[in-house]
Every structure is written in structure tokens, then in C-alpha cells.
């Protein structure tokens, strides 16, 4: 596969693995496409775990005074569910698409730092494992996904918090590494002619998301370090007995936390902005405004964090500022919604599964956005905080938003990744079951919240009159579960015997559709030259866009070069490497050491050191 034109002197600690097979191919891969698949598969397993936790909670809440799980278990369930869905499902599923799609969209052979990319994945996996190690000793994190101080101090909590603290720090390292990588990749590896304002929207949202990751994760890292020092070494950051201020935790957490919600939603918006134009056969309406909207949302996201803290008593001036900045975000968000709708309007619309998910996203995200603007107002938020109204709000944006779009992305790009379609019939069933189940689950939570049902309670008395809507909600949750089973059936069926998809099954607009499905290892035999927005569309239909028809020649050249590339194997792609996984394993051991047996900590750090040295000495090619 990876062939080298001139022999390279090998004098690293270990020779680079050459064309490994089977599991070793996955373990040592540095190919962004394979890493994307690893991210996607792992995130899906975590989705099943987080979903099971959700179903357990919904089962317990179905009727008043139920006895399925106790209060302690319920705390653990919502904590692990929230943390898992955010850091181990939506983020890595987005990262799966960053990895697979972005290099293809920008006409690159890989990311800027392929080994760092593999490292990101293995660190993510290690963080996910560390977070779940608490189950081994039945000390599961149970302080909520934002782990408010000072509940998290040793005096008020058990060991579960340690798993949360260590796991999240490690997950953060993986996210940061990926953030840096995609930032540099998009800045520096664009094909000739692919100027910033020609980049596909998904590449744009990946770019902006990477900036958010790079700027937001250091803040949570410091908050976690401070908490860890409190718990391990008796520091006082959040220990009120010695002057610690729990509100500081809230500030640090939400300075990170609000950008984080855009880290979760921007990639989804990017996916929708890819799907809608293709299935409406129209260019994205208001492209520049879409780009500016994404950029201004990202900027504003750093100015609104204290809207999570109105009830701490910020004072009228601060509360007014944060209310105003929060409402301001509705403007660029509204622009995006109108642009998507205008893209569909007047198009020749095809309602295939990907488009259904994208349209579902637009509707559901709008509902979630509207309830969000409601609690931008401090007096309103004071009523709604910690009620089921908030649970309804964030599920409309996170599930109705991010998850629907990510499913749309799977249906859309599955033919590119596997060369086969997902079944359209099962796809429609998947969509409608999920859509109906979702609204049954979370719609009624608005009513429950306004009716005063607090979030994070494990049961409620019958006299409250909350029984009916809770039962509806639980039925909806099982419908969502069923829709996920339909999805699994669809994928396994298609992988075995799905209908073959050509290189361009949807009549796509962007460069990933210009190469075979699945793409060759090296992506592009010759690097494409981009002449405008929607580069591949222009190439296919120059007459539609009023361009000179020079493109077909170029295309023929590219196909010819493809064969040549295949035949002579002169294309440089990076060799696989052992070091990313070895270095990440060191981090896993070090984290395990902190959690279970301190002597392992230096061992792990030593492995990291050896990994870093081996990595930097490894001969680099291609």
C-alpha cells in the first residue's frame, strides 16, 4: 500500500509496520478514513450504552413511585448518560465525519498530522474507558454532567467523581489533539483554488469547531486539575471551609460549557448544509451569510456563559449583559434556519432518508432554539432552571439537533464510505420511528417542566399529576430505542448485501463525490484544482454555472492518473505507526494509576515518554 519511492533510512526505535493486516492494520493505522471509521464505531457503541442508561431512567419514571432503580443509581444513570452522550457520542461521531469527509472535501490525501490523528482516537478511547472503570468497583460518577462544586469535594461525594475527573481530562487531551489537527489541516492542506469562501459548509463548521475546541478545552482542563488537586492533595479550590468558592467552578465550567454546546451543534449544522442543497438540487442559499453566521456564533459563544448561572445572583448588570448576548445568538441562528428553508424552497426536492433527517433537524432544532431564547431571560430562567423544561430544551437541540443530523450524515455518506446504499425502506422507517418517538419523549417534558417537575428526581408522588405525561414520555423513549434497532438492522443488511452505489450516487456537489466509493487509500490520484464553490458540481455541469467547459478534460486526466497511481504506486501516503497507540496506552496506564494504584502513574508516564521519543525519532515518509 504505502510505497516509498526512494529507500528511507530506518533508524527509529522500532521499524514502522509495513502493510499490516487484520487487527494490526487498525491498531497501527494513520489513515484518516480508517480512523474515522474507528471513531464512528466506538461512538456508536457508547451511544448504545448511553441510550440504555436513558431507557433505564425512563422506565423508572414511567409511573409514580416506581421501584426499578433507587435514587443513588438514578444519580449515576443521569450523570453517565449525559457525560457519555456529550463527550463519547456526539463529539466523536462528529470527529468521525471530520476524519472521513474533510480531507476528501478539501482535496487532500490525509490530515496534516496523521500520527497525531491516530493518537487522538486512542486517547479518546482511553478516556472513555477510564470514565467507565468506576463500574468495576461500583463507584460510578453521580454528580451530574456539570459536576457542581462543592458536591464534588471528598466530604460530600464518593470515589465515582475521581473517574469522572480523570476520564474527562483524558478525553480532553484527545479532543485538543484532534482540534489542532483539523485546524491546521483546513488552513494548510486545501487543494489549489479552494479559497476559504469556496470551502464546503461542513469543512467550514469543522474549522470553526476546531477553533472552539482549541480555545475552550484548556479551561475545563484547569477546572478539572483544580478539582483533582482538591480531591487528591487536599487543595482548597472548591473547599468552602477554607475559603474555596463553588461559584468559581461554575464560571470555569460554563466558560468551557457554552462553547462546548456549539462544538456539539456546529458540525451537525455543517452536515445539514451539505445534505439540503444536494437533495434540493440548488446551491446553498446565502452561502456567505452561512459562513459569517457560523463564525459569529462561535465568537458569541464565549460571551454568554453566565446564562447558566442567573440563579446564583449575578446582579442586575451582569444578568442584563448575559441575557442580551444570549438573545443576540438567536440572530445568526435564525439566519441559518431561514437560509436552509430558502435552499429547499423552489428546489426539485427529493425526500430520501438523508434529506428527511436534515429537514427533521431544521424543525426540531428550531423548537429547541425557541425554548432556548425563552430562558435567555433571567426571570423566565429562574422559573425554568432545574425543571423538566430545561431537559426538554436541551434534548431538542442535542437529540433533535445533533443526533438527527448525524444520522442524516450516516445515511448520506454511507454509500461513499462503503460503496453501498443503506436501505431506503428501512431508512424511512428509522426516520419516522425516531421522529415520532423523539417528540413523544421530549415534547411532554415541556408541560412537565412548566408544571414544576424538577429534573434529576428518581421518582414522584402520584398526587402531583405528572403520571400521564411521564408515561407518554417513556413510551416515546422505547420507540426511539426501536428506531435504533431498525438502524442497526439496516446497516448490517447493507454491509452484506446493500445496493451498490457508484462514485456519485446523489448527484453531489462537493469533491468527495468525484472519487470512487469507497475512496482509494490515497484519496486523490492527482490533487484536484478548484474553480469555484461546489467544485464537483461545477466540473459536472459547467454550462449550468456559465463557466467555460474546460473541466471535462481535467476530469479525464484525473481518471487516467488514477489508474496510473494504482499501477505504479508512486503516491506517498504515511506508513502506519505503533507510536500513537503506545503513547495513548501510557496515558491509559497513568490514568488507571491515579484511580487505583499510584505506583502505576510513573509507569504510565514513562511509557508516554518512551512513546514520545520513539515517535519523534520515527523516520517520516510521504
Amino acid at each position, binding site marked *: 500500500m504505502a510505497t516509498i519511492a526512494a529507500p528511507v533510512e530506518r533508524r527509529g526505535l522500532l521499524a514502522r509496520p509495513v502493510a499490516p493486516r487484520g487487527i494490526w492494520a487498525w491498531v497501527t493505522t494513520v489513515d484518516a478514513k480508517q480512523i474515522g471509521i474507528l471513531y464512528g464505531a466506538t461512538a456508536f457503541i457508547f451511544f448504545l450504552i448511553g441510550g440504555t442508561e436513558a431507557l433505564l431512567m425512563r422506565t423508572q419514571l414511567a409511573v409514580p413511585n416506581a421501584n426499578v432503580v433507587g435514587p443513588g443509581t438514578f444519580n449515576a444513570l443521569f450523570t453517565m448518560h449525559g457525560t457519555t452522550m456529550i463527550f463519547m457520542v456526539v463529539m466523536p461521531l462528529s470527529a468521525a465525519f471530520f476524519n472521513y469527509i474533510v480531507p476528501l472535501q478539501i482535496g487532500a490525501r490525509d490530515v496534516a498530522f496523521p500520527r497525531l490523528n491516530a493518537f487522538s482516537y486512542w486517547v479518546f478511547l482511553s478516556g472513555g474507558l477510564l470514565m467507565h472503570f468506576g463500574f468495576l468497583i461500583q463507584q460510578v460518577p453521580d454528580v451530574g454532567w456539570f459536576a457542581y462544586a462543592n458536591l464534588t469535594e471528598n466530604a460530600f461525594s464518593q470515589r465515582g467523581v475521581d473517574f469522572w475527573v480523570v476520564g474527562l481530562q483524558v478525553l480532553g487531551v484527545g479532543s485538543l489533539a484532534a482540534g489542532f489537527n483539523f485546524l491546521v489541516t483546513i488552513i494548510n492542506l*486545501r487543494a489549489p483554488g479552494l479559497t476559504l469562501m469556496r470551502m464546503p459548509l461542513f469543512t467550514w463548521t469543522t474549522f470553526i469547531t476546531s477553533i472552539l475546541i482549541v480555545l475552550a478545552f484548556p479551561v475545563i482542563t484547569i477546572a478539572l486539575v483544580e478539582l483533582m488537586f482538591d480531591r487528591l492533595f487536599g487543595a482548597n479550590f472548591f473547599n468552602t471551609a477554607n475559603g474555596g468558592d463553588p461559584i468559581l467552578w461554575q464560571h470555569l465550567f460554563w466558560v468551557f460549557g457554552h462553547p462546548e454546546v456549539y462544538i456539539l451543534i456546529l458540525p451537525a449544522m455543517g452536515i445539514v448544509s451539505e445534505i439540503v442543497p444536494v437533495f434540493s438540487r440548488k446551491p446553498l442559499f446565502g452561502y456567505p451569510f452561512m459562513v459569517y453566521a457560523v463564525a459569529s456564533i462561535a465568537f458569541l459563544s464565549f460571551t454568554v456563559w453566565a446564562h447558566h448561572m442567573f440563579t446564583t445572583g449575578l446582579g442586575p448588570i451582569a444578568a442584563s449583559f448575559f441575557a442580551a448576548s444570549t438573545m443576540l445568538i438567536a440572530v445568526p441562528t435564525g439566519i441559518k434556519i431561514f437560509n436552509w428553508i430558502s435552499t429547499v424552497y423552489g428546489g426539485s426536492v427529493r425526500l430520501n432518508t438523508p434529506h428527511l433527517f436534515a429537514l427533521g433537524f431544521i424543525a426540531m432544532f428550531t423548537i429547541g432554539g425557541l425554548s432556548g431564547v425563552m430562558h435567555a431571560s433571567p426571570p423566565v430562567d429562574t422559573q425554568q432552571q432545574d425543571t423538566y423544561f430545561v431537559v426538554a430544551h436541551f434534548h431538542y437541540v442535542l437529540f433533535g439537533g445533533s443526533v438527527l443530523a448525524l444520522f442524516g450524515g450516516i445515511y448520506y455518506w454511507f454509500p461513499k464510505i462503503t460503496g453501498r446504499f443503506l436501505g431506503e425502506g428501512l431508512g424511512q422507517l428509522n426516520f419516522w420511528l425516531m421522529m415520532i418517538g423523539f417528540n413523544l419523549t421530549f415534547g411532554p417534558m415541556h408541560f412537565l417542566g412548566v408544571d414544576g417537575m424538577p429534573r434529576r428526581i428518581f421518582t414522584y408522588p402520584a398526587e402531583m399529576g405528572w403520571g400521564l405525561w411521564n408515561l407518554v414520555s417513556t413510551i416515546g423513549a422505547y420507540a426511539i430505542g426501536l428506531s435504533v434497532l431498525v438502524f442497526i438492522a439496516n446497516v448490517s443488511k447493507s454491509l452484506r448485501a446493500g445496493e451498490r452505489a457508484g462514485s456519485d450516487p446523489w448527484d453531489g456537489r462537493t469533491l468527495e463525490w468525484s472519487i470512487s466509493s469507497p475512496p482509494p487509500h490515497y484519496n486523490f490520484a492527482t490533487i484536484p484544482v478548484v474553480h469555484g464553490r461546489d467544485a464537483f458540481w461545477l466540473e459536472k455541469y459547467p454550462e449550468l454555472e456559465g463557466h467555460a467547459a474546460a473541466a471535462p478534460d481535467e476530469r479525464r486526466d484525473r481518471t487516467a492518473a488514477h489508474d496510473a497511481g494504482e499501477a505504479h504506486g508512486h503516491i506517498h501516503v504515511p506508513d502506519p505507526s505503533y507510536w500513537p497507540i503506545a503513547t495513548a496506552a501510557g496515558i491509559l496506564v497513568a490514568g488507571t494509576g491515579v484511580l487505583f494504584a499510584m505506583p502505576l502513574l510513573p509507569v504510565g508516564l514513562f511509557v508516554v515518554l518512551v512513546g514520545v521519543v520513539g515517535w519523534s525519532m520515527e523516520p517520516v515518509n510521504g
Partner: protein
Amino acid sequence: MEHVAALPAQAHVGETSTGLNSRKVLMWAFLGSDCMLFGSLIGTYLVYRGNYPSGPKPSDVFDIPYTSVSAFALLMSSLAMVLALAAIQRGDIRRLKIWLLCVAGLGLVFIGGQVYEFTTFGSEGLNLTTATFGSSFFTLTGFHGTHVTFGIVWLLMLWMLAARGQMTQARSLDVEIAGLYWHFVDIVWIIIFTVVYLIPAI
């Protein structure tokens, strides 16, 4: 970990979209990220610096002339770093080695000073567990010290490569990127020194 990738020769040789080397862009991005890291630490310190109910107060423990000397050593190391880069860009590997050792040595002086300072403070009753002033002071300066230590290891690795004859003029970028990191860490210390030691003393 980001530095890890910064060490080997660049994967994508030659042309990039911006004409800037990818490893250099990576380092700039990392430094931007690190600003947020130190911003959070300094913010925490500012919230907590006045809280020392029983333990020693800042003015009891801080020895500004002493810390000024070690700060000066770190500042001078940046000068040596500039000279190291100039040397490799000229292809003068002998001077490169000298200046790299100089930078690392001055960095070690700084770290030695910090270790001494930490132990002295400890014996005067200020440590990580003394109220929130102690917690935030040691975490902030400790994080900075860790950055410096990492930089020293990195510079010594470059020196080792130079000693083994593997650093040539063509690899001046390796030194330049290490230099970016080093100057940044240096600037951060100027801010910390001002905020933590100087301003309260006025």
C-alpha cells in the same frame, strides 16, 4: 502532546495552502490554546489571592529581589534562544550547540530557583493546602514551571541531535518552533511575575 508531532520532519513537504509550514501553524495554535490555560489559572489566582486566613500572606513569603534574579535568567534565555536560531540559520552548528546549552542552562537556573522558592515557602508554612491562596499560587506557578521543564527537555533533545551531527541548516525550522514555545513561556512568566509578585507590592 502537541509538541510530539512538532519534532519529526514535516510530513507534507513543500507547498501548503498558506505557504506557512504546518508544524509552525500547529505551534501557533497550541500557543493560542495555552493562553486560555494560563488565563484560567491566572483568573483563579486573582479570585483567591487575598484569602490567607491563618497561613502566611504573600508579603510574608515573597522575596522580590530573589525572584527578580531568576526572572532575569529566564529573560536572558530568550536572548540566547534568538542567537541559537540565528546560528543554525547561518549554518553555524558549533554556536547552535553553545547557545542551546545556554538556553537550557538558564532555564535550569530558573527551575532551580523555583524549587528553592517552593521549599522555602513550604518551610514558612505556605503550601498547596494552605487556604486558597496557597492552592492557587502553587498551581499557577507549578504549571508554568512544568512548561519550562518541558522546554528544557526539548532543547536538550535538539542539542543531542546537533551533537550527533543531525542538525543542519535545513532543519532550522525545528529550532524556530522550539523557540516560539520558549519565548511564549517566557512572556507568560513576565505576566505571572507582574500579577503575582509586583503589583501587590506596589
